[in-house]
């Protein structure tokens, strides 16, 4: 029995994470700490009920974007990606490996954050917790897929970090948390509807509000489509031959 390449890659990425205890602690504990902060700030009131679910969508997306950007950039600059390209490794093995590792990680991260939000911070969840978890993992994969793709355009880790204010923060500002999308100025509304994470927030908020059916499936399918799109684009940034 041989291990499939994607499974070997996922195991390797998780081992690298495991050897970095501080990052693990940050990824696992930080979402809950910040959700707790929001709950405290708004005294678990109306505003928290609005922001809480968004934070549950935000963290898997945000952290997986950062972690994927940095790990893949390291893979490029340390020469390991180049070495992989000389082996029988397939591109799908690399990309699916990363996606699997971070999806597994996102399940743990989201599970802890959701349980903390609901049982410690009294976040009312009208919809199903399982659906919320599935959506949070989809958001995490969105972050991973964007990180895989965008890290190709960074030469240094410092540049990779700069993609955060450039590509991620606008998606959060226009994501519908601060103002409902249909009340935004026309141009910003169009922009918001083009951003993938808008749908990541919408789905989680709708699940929390107890909506179901198409109100959840539509944003879910949009997020999945963006994940697939960025993964295809990402695989184009992994050429075997370089200059």
């Amino acid at each position, binding site marked *: 029995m041989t291990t499939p390449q994607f499974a070997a890659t996922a195991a390797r990425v998780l081992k690298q994470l495991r*050897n970095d205890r501080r990052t693990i602690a940050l990824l696992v504990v930080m979402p809950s700490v910040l959700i707790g902060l929001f709950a405290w700030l708004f005294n678990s009131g109306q505003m928290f009920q609005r922001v809480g679910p968004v934070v549950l969508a935000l963290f898997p997306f945000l952290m997986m974007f950062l972690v994927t950007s940095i790990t893949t950039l390291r893979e490029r600059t*340390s020469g390991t990606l180049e070495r992989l390209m*000389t082996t*029988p490794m397939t591109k799908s093995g690399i990309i699916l490996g990363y996606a699997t590792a971070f999806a597994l990680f996102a399940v743990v991260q989201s599970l802890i954050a959701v349980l903390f939000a609901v049982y410690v911070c009294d976040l009312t969840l009208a919809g199903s917790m399982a659906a919320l978890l599935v959506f949070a993992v989809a958001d995490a994969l969105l972050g991973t897929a964007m990180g895989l793709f965008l890290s190709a355009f960074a030469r240094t880790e410092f540049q990779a970090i700069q993609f955060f204010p450039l590509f991620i923060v606008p998606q959060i500002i226009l994501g519908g948390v601060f103002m409902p999308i249909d009340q935004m100025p026309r141009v910003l509304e169009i922009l918001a509807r083009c951003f993938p994470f808008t749908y990541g927030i919408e789905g989680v908020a709708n699940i929390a509000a107890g909506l179901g059916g198409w109100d959840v499936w539509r944003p879910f399918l949009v997020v999945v489509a963006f994940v697939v799109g960025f993964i295809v684009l990402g695989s184009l940034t992994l050429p*075997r*031959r*370089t*200059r």
Partner: protein
Amino acid sequence: MLGAMTSAVTIRGLRVRRGRVQVFDGLDLDIAAGRLTGLIGPSGCGKTTLIRSIVGLQIVQGGDVTVLGRPAGAPELRHRVTYSAQNDGLYRDLSVRDNVAYFAQIAGLPGSEVDRVIAAVGLAGQAKQRADSVSGGQFRRISLAIALLGRPDLILLDEPTVGLDPVLRADLWDMFARLARDGVTLIVSSHVMDEASRCDDLVLLREGQLVAATTPAGLLAETGLADADQAFLELIHRAEGVQP
């Protein structure tokens, strides 16, 4: 004399441009199978570019590179050709064994092969240590262990001995010689001329030009000098003498 043997690598009219530098402009070269070939020349002469072209990582502007009868970089070569780059290409935050095991799994090789190559480079005692915690020489040997995985027919090593102490360098060259004796083709680059004597064949490069494709004995015989370093300089002077 190379023509009499089977070639592992045949290069015809290779043209490579990197950035603004035309590194090769019509290079022809044959590298014999089952021998230890040293790719030697000063820093910047094109050793890395040549190795990358042979392994199929380099975008080339023209010419043919044939490796074990197939075009360089062909998928079926990825099980038969291994490459260890000048800069590590290892996961520093993983253990020695995890590094080797990952590349073994990718190639569909069993755990016993991981143990074999780790023992072959003398790292059995460090297998559980993190890659970034071993000494410089041991670190190089992790890379070498990965290059040995799956008993490849052709191994390309880019400056594997640079920065190592003389004892360690001698050990590695002994190991390369043993591999070649077992029938493996090795192409090993170095910018240190005194390593030339350890090779079966020599490819001497300077500024992307082939100065000579010879043997250590041939180099000395042709120049009438006793020292490889001086012989290389002599060949360069001669080449410049005929092409003003």
